[in-house]
């Protein structure tokens, strides 16, 4: 009975799979049973013989080749549970597409389409205040310059050609905010004095607009072309009484303008406000010491016409 148990378990003993107590029991039995000891020797020698068929380590070449082949396979393999990963780990999904050329191309096309979208055209009906096609106003920064400004003879219709990326054309009446915006832009920024002249000339028709008045004062102070400055003076003249800023701009022009014609024009325009203390002091100064004889004499006349103060 005992030997039978040993024979059943001797294989596990050889493979070291017996529990400690069973192992101890078996060893105790082997110490006093010659038959079972012989059986153990036989089993061990049999196992030693089986090991004559060795387990070889795979060659480095085989390992390398297998790894390369697997890497190629992994390139095209997709992991399971795709939707699960998409839902719970969108970052992993983004990692997979971050350098996708298709995505780059799509972004490029989107940007290109956006650029095209900035191209527009303003259309309006003849002679009226209505605008034929409402078009969004371009940002000033997108305007590189105004090419030309023309007014149809005998009408309120104005055409302005201006450049953005490519030359564009806007049409509308002077009341059109879009047109006013372009005119203001032209008055301040254009490199072509003819265009500045045209824009200032048109703006003088709308001096009630605060922005227009500021643009005219700007032109009067800083425009390099005397014609433009004279046009600005014409537009501002009507407001010398009501707007102290206009009066100051005219005084400034009277004192500092390099063009005698402009100075003379400013002097005449200031006549309605010659009683103002600031105007009077300037006139006094001009009457005393101005280099231009005509200015000196005109200043004296204006001072003489001032009513006596009690």
């Amino acid at each position, binding site marked *: 009975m005992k030997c039978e148990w040993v024979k059943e378990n001797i294989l596990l003993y050889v493979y*070291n799979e017996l529990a400690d107590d069973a192992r101890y029991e078996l060893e105790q039995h082997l110490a006093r049973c010659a038959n079972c000891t012989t059986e153990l020797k036989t089993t061990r020698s049999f196992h030693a013989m089986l090991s004559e068929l060795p387990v070889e380590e795979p060659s480095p070449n*085989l390992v390398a080749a297998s790894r390369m*082949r697997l890497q190629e396979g*992994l390139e095209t393999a997709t*992991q399971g549970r795709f939707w699960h990963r998409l839902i719970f780990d969108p970052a992993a999904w983004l990692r997979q597409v971050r350098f996708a050329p298709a995505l780059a191309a799509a972004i490029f096309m989107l940007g290109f389409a956006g650029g095209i979208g900035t191209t527009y055209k303003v259309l309006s009906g003849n002679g009226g205040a209505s605008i034929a096609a409402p078009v969004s106003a371009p940002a000033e920064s997108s305007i590189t310059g105004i090419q030309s400004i023309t007014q149809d003879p005998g009408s309120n219709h104005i055409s302005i050609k201006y450049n953005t990326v490519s030359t564009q054309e806007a049409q509308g009446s002077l009341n059109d905010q879009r047109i006013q915006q372009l005119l203001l832009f032209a008055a301040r920024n254009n490199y072509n004095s003819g265009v500045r002249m045209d824009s200032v000339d048109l703006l003088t028709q709308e001096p009630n607009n605060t922005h227009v008045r500021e643009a005219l004062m700007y032109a009067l102070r800083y425009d390099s072309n005397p014609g433009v400055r004279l046009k600005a003076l014409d537009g501002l003249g009507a407001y010398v009484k009501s707007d102290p800023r206009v009066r100051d701009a005219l005084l400034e022009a009277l004192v500092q303008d390099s063009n005698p014609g402009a100075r003379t024009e400013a002097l005449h325009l200031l006549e309605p406000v010659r009683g103002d203390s600031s105007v009077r002091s300037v006139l006094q100064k001009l009457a005393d010491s101005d280099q231009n004889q005509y200015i000196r004499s005109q200043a004296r006349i204006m001072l003489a016409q001032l009513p006596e103060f009690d």
Partner: protein
Amino acid sequence: MPAGAWVVPFAVGECSHPVRRDSRKEAGGIQDPQLWGAMTGQASERIDDTLLVREAQRGNRAAFEELVRHYDQAVLRLAVHLTGSEPEAQDVYQEAFLKAYKSIGNFRFECSFYTWIYRIVTNLCLDHLRKRQVRKEDAPVATDAAGEQYDVLDQVPDGRSGANPERDLMRRELAKRITRALEKLTPRERMVFELKHYHGLKLRTVGEVLNTTEETAKNTLFRATQKLRGALADMR
């Protein structure tokens, strides 16, 4: 590698336990010091398996490739020994790791990654063995990577025979007989014997890898050993 070294052929955790080999003689099966060394090296690598598996589950391919590098030599060793053919072993390798990659999202850490990948590999190897049985191949002839046929047993190195041609010849003959005897086992018996005797897995782990109990694995091992003894009775 000293005989009394600690060897952890399988990952720690619920699936298996470290095994202490007191003596190579007692171990009986694995007597190749290189094999023992390789297994010990794997033990330390397995520590960070959990992290790598989690990364791989998030779709990190580099992490998966690192896992592959931890286990692929063991997989190839098993596949080459079982199939006796490098190209076939490569097929098993490829199929096993691709399958693992695709289904790693389903890995639930109920056992070690080592056990899991071995389960995939053994299932594929069993398929190969079954197909081979159907073909009734009786000669241990295989094809190498270059497509040329060769006798598997001619590849057995003669390191232990030294310069003794007679001893070498006998050893080759013995290896052929053993191979034939192994091929007469059923695929399942062969697999249990292979994992236990040639790869040193604990019977408990063999059961886990083959989706069966330790007791069944033990009985299968007994049966396989009896058959082999009968087939090789005249060699003793």
